[in-house]
């Protein structure tokens, strides 16, 4: 019976939006921007792969270093300007006003009921996975370069940490809102956990 309902749903939607591929289902698991999703991951993962396999690819340290720098720059630009906006509806930038003071602006797009404006779950998952995993890897590489004394790579690794960390920080600020929201979110979460603990305890104690 559920199956029948879902087919009714799709039939209703196709009457209104004949050419629209995605439906109004609450699942939203389609990838709407395949090119953006691909490039979001491509530059980051290639930079890491080139770093790890540089000795195999070419004996020239310079070529590897320049390639990694190019990939990191393209990745920074793409994630900051294109994929964040398209995939999860967040953006951040720096604005200098008339007095010369600099403000950092973090914005998130309001979820509107329009078609194509909601965030798809698959894209969101890809975005955050790529955004979080890669800076962590670069930090690991930084420590390994430091402790194994491959210091000539340290410049590139630090650049990777800084660029990808900047994007990570920017998008987390966008997602969470202002810093005030972050602390209030943390306190509500902790408060809820605490409440759950105490009510759970009282329940078990009253049940006995």
């Amino acid at each position: 019976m559920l199956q029948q309902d879902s087919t009714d749903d799709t039939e209703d939607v196709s009457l209104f939006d004949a050419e629209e591929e995605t439906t109004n289902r609450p699942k939203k698991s389609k990838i709407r921007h395949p090119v953006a999703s691909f490039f979001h991951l491509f530059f980051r993962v290639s930079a890491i792969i080139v770093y790890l396999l540089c000795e195999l690819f070419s004996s020239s340290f310079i070529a590897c270093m320049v390639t990694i720098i190019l990939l990191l720059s393209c990745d920074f630009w793409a994630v900051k300007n294109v994929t964040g906006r398209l995939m999860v509806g967040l953006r951040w930038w720096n604005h200098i006003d008339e007095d010369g003071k600099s403000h950092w602006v973090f914005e998130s797009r309001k979820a509107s009921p329009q078609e194509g404006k909601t965030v798809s779950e698959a894209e969101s998952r890809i975005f955050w996975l790529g955004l979080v995993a890669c800076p962590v890897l670069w930090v690991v590489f930084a420590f390994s370069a430091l402790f194994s004394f491959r210091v000539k790579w340290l410049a590139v690794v630090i650049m990777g940490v800084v660029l990808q960390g900047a994007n990570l920080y920017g998008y987390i600020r966008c997602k969470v809102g202002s810093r005030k929201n972050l602390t209030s979110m943390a306190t509500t979460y902790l408060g809820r956990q605490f409440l759950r603990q105490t009510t759970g305890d009282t329940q078990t104690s009253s049940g006995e």
Partner: protein
Amino acid sequence: MAEAVESPGDPGTTTPRPLMRDLKAVGKKFMHVLYPRKSNTLLRDWDLWGPLILCVTLALMLQRGSVDSEKDGGPQFAEVFVIVWFGAVTITLNSKLLGGNISFFQSLCVLGYCILPLTMALLVCRLVLLAEPGPINFMVRLFVVIIMFAWSIVASTAFLADSQPPNRKALAVYPVFLFYFVISWMILTFTPQ
């Protein structure tokens, strides 16, 4: 395609081609360095792409030895990077500690873009070095480097000096002098083996 929240601070995000906007902004800043005028462009719309391009170009051209050997240019490449970025950060910190009202990234932007004349000097030096070595060769290179060094200093102080109170201008400007001096020295003493 307008976003649900249209913000006045970022005019470019709604245009369909942000890449061209960014490239044009970088090109415009290069022009401003070449013809320094009293304008706010370098400061208001700062970006660090120009400094990155210039730094990589500088580091690539300051290579000794053949490109195919295993022990090629690694340390020198990283050395140029470290000198440029660490130097720029130090100057920025110095200017902020002196009470300047310029932001961190704006200062990095100006310092990075004003390396352009010195990069051109390096190009000219490399071309001159293709000719036979000798004192005339050295004099030509010295002349070019000095001119470009002066150009860099003039361009960067045109942008940076205004952000300092008048009795602190010299204190804020002399590290810039040192910074470009070190880069000019690296360029002048460069000899490809």
